């Protein structure tokens, strides 16, 4: 820990989490806990087909049921023309979003919504759905990304022509976009290499696997004013998206955020909220909608499956001379996979003079891909970090040494253009090499793997306020749902600046009518960006407190200092006055100018990127193909760990999700494009008994853009695990696994083939 950390009173302390008691006692209100008097139950009718034309929808029998108060189809959603697809601040493509909310002419995946009802009971709603008659013309479907790219593949969108190629094709295609990033001279670089490794990799779509399914309550009054209570990663996102989808005034929608039971990117868009609004508007009553787990799997966005080819060349001394990567990402039913971000992150841990990354964004007949922790980066890292491990083996070089010889640092140019600022990748490598884990002995059928990862982190529009109450306690208000401890971190930063006891500061997540716009929680941005706004607001409050003390003492404000939560005269010349505590100043606020508070809003920029390096030990059961994770150490640069326990929790959570992605998780479709494993019994996420304690090691290379040096921490920990585990498996059984998940049947097949 750097010496300067010791100067802080609260930064870096493991304070009691503000939301802890409510969560462990079951008092915390999640999306499904909300209810309203006279509330209806909303349910969705979903497509049984992966790809089909809708010939007709007859809702008359459902509407005739006395218990049914509203029925909606795509006809109830405004048809957003291409010219109005993007509008507002940082918008989605509203045309695609609308078509994803409710199928208009075609269903594009099993689970695509085609109608919804609001009824007086779940049973009545279910019966109503069964009475809706939809006639389909079933069309050929395609889910595999490379199959979807073939010229004769079934085309999902007749109006989609591949972007990023010259000239623009005249024939529609499932390839939405081609992206290319390059630096240096690739061919010359490979000629310099003493060793070149090239391999093909594939990954399957995986779901974020949040424990809380989507849930919403919506109420629209007679004058069109709407209220929404929902679990999401952004109450302002819900407001913005619903207004855009339904042509409503933004100010006519008020969204109150519920506690969130996991999101990991999957709750950065709307899934039920527009439907509930429409059903409420049509019925004149509040409507509650919740998803089942099967709905979550079938209808919400997993991340992309992929096919990739990676080629890396290096000299005998370990210096990488050239590297190339081609990634083909499933976008799901609408464009927007993170292929570009995969390309941009893939080689950024390294200083490589000659590199090229090409990405393809490809639509297929499964739900639209949604963000998942460091979108795109983990997939690309699986290919790059696996290939790099093979280079190390080929050179008979320690894999961390190989990484250290090529490690990115300040001033290194990235494949996507800019040079890196202050980053802490080398520090993660040093900490990994020094960790006892790296030197621990291994037994038979056991192996060790390492891998690294990079994520940009983001900032974005952020608003926050700090208010001093009349008794001198402090309220912090932020507008980003707390998915990973942001309230605790914001309280710590406010208390640090104000110099007050942590227990005198409370934080809430505000509704959309109480605070300025906030971009949703995501991109590892909240502790960085909201922390910056809270810090600035707290500094403003300190200035106000100094001014109030100056008024009370009738001296110049410059003659007042603020430290440890107390105003004092700056020196003897300022006059002799007893110090004033925050509570004493607050108590006199009525006579010194009124309430004391500060609000700050900014489009926060310049987030510090995050790097991680992981070490994992596995044991492979040669009889069953089962891979046991024996030991896992994750080293990460957090910039400054405001609340170390939460940082460690983020690291551990990211690693666990990566372990699931590596070993078991996958969407399995039947020949008709129907998901065969839409439940946690058949879609196997890791459970506690699968895992060792994840040792999270935090290194701190402060981000110069943040007042306390914060870097986002939530996303990069999911980047290295898949490659690290593949590398460990090769170390254990001398077999290179290139297809995720590395599940027991695949391991057994690989062992059999080798035998």
């Amino acid at each position, binding site marked *: 820990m750097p010496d300067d950390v010791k100067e802080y009173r609260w930064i870096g302390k493991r304070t009691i989490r503000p939301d802890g008691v409510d969560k462990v006692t079951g008092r915390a209100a999640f999306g499904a806990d909300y209810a309203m008097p006279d509330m209806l139950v909303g349910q969705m009718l979903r497509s049984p087909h992966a790809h089909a034309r809708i010939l007709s929808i007859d809702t008359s029998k459902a509407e005739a049921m006395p218990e049914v108060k509203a029925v909606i189809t795509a006809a109830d959603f405004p048809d957003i023309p291409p010219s109005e697809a993007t509008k507002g601040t940082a918008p989605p493509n509203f045309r695609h979003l609308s078509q994803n909310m409710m199928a208009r002419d075609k269903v594009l995946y099993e689970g695509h919504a085609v109608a919804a009802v609001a009824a007086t009971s779940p049973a009545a709603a279910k019966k109503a759905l069964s009475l809706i008659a939809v006639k389909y013309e079933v069309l050929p479907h395609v889910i595999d990304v490379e199959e979807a790219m073939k010229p004769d593949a079934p085309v999902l969108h007749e109006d989609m022509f591949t972007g990023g190629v010259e000239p623009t094709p005249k024939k529609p295609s499932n390839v939405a976009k081609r992206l290319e990033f390059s630096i240096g001279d690739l061919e010359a670089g490979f000629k310099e290499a003493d060793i070149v490794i090239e391999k093909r990799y594939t990954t399957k779509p995986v779901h974020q696997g949040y424990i809380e399914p989507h849930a919403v309550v919506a109420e629209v009054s007679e004058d069109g004013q709407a209220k929404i209570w929902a679990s999401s990663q952004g109450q302002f996102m819900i407001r913005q998206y619903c207004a855009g989808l339904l042509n409503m005034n933004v100010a006519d929608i008020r969204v109150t955020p519920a506690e969130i039971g996991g999101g990991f990117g999957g709750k950065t868009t709307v899934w039920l909220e527009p439907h509930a609004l429409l059903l409420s508007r049509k019925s004149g009553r509040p409507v509650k909608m919740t998803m089942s787990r099967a709905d979550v799997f079938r209808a919400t966005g997993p991340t992309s499956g992929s096919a990739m080819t990676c080629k890396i060349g290096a000299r005998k001394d370990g210096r990488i001379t050239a590297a190339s990567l081609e990634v083909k990402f499933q976008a799901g039913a609408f464009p927007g996979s*993170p292929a570009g971000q995969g390309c941009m992150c893939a080689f950024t841990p390294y200083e490589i003079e000659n590199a090229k990354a090409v990405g393809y964004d490809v639509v297929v007949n499964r739900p639209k891909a949604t963000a998942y922790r460091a979108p795109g980066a983990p997939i690309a890292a699986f290919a790059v970090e696996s290939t790099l491990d093979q280079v190390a083996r080929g050179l008979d070089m320690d894999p961390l040494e190989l990484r250290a010889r090529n490690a990115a640092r300040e001033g290194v140019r990235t494949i996507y253009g800019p040079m890196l600022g202050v980053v802490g990748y080398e520090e993660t490598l040093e900490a990994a090499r020094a960790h006892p884990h790296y030197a621990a002995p291994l037994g038979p059928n056991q192996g060790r793997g390492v891998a690294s990862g990079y994520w940009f982190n983001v900032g974005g529009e952020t608003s926050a306020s700090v208010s001093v109450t009349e008794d001198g306690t402090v309220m912090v208000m932020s507008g980003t749902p707390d998915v990973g401890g942001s309230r605790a971190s914001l309280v710590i930063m406010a208390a640090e600046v104000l110099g007050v006891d942590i227990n005198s500061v409370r934080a809430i997540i505000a509704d959309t009518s109480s605070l300025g716009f906030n971009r949703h929680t995501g991109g590892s941005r909240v502790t960085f960006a909201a922390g910056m706004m809270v810090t600035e607001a707290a500094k403003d409050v300190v200035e106000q407190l100094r001014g109030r003390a100056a008024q009370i003492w009738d001296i110049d404000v410059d003659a007042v200092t603020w430290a440890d939560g107390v105003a004092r005269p700056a020196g003897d010349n300022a006059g002799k006055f007893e110090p004033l505590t925050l509570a004493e100043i607050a108590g006199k606020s009525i006579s010194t100018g009124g309430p004391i508070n500060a609000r700050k809003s900014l*489009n926060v920029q310049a*987030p510090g990127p995050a790097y991680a390096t992981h070490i994992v030990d596995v044991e492979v059961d040669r009889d069953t193909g089962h891979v046991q994770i024996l030991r896992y150490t994750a080293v990460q640069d957090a910039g400054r760990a405001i609340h170390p326990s939460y940082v460690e929790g983020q690291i551990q959570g990211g690693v666990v999700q990566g372990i699931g992605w590596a070993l078991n998780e996958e969407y399995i479709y039947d020949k008709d494009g129907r998901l065969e494993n839409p439940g946690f019994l058949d879609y196997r996420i890791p459970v506690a008994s699968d895992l060792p304690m994840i040792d999270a090691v935090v290194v701190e290379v402060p981000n110069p853009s943040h007042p306390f040096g914060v870097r986002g921490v939530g996303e990069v920990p999911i980047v290295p695990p898949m490659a690290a585990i593949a590398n460990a498996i090769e170390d254990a059984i001398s077999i290179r696994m290139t297809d995720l998940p590395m599940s027991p049947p695949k391991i057994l097949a690989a062992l059999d083939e080798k035998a």
Partner: protein
Amino acid sequence: MVQVLLSREIARKFTAGEVRIEIDGENVRGLIRALDERFPGLGEILRTDMAVAIDGQIFQDASLEPIPPGSEVCFLPAIEGG
């Protein structure tokens, strides 16, 4: 003057392959306007879903961000997290 670094993909289409452009621009909006005047059509590309890096620091939706003289400015795809 600032140094603008374009991706090869964009340079092929708008600047006859020239990836490094020296041009005046006091802020991001002015810089894009100047680039569009010199390379018609480039402005629309740079205004749409693009972030900008000024001396390595990434800014998103920051058209009024000042650009110090002598800076290196890169345009890159906007970044969305999870």
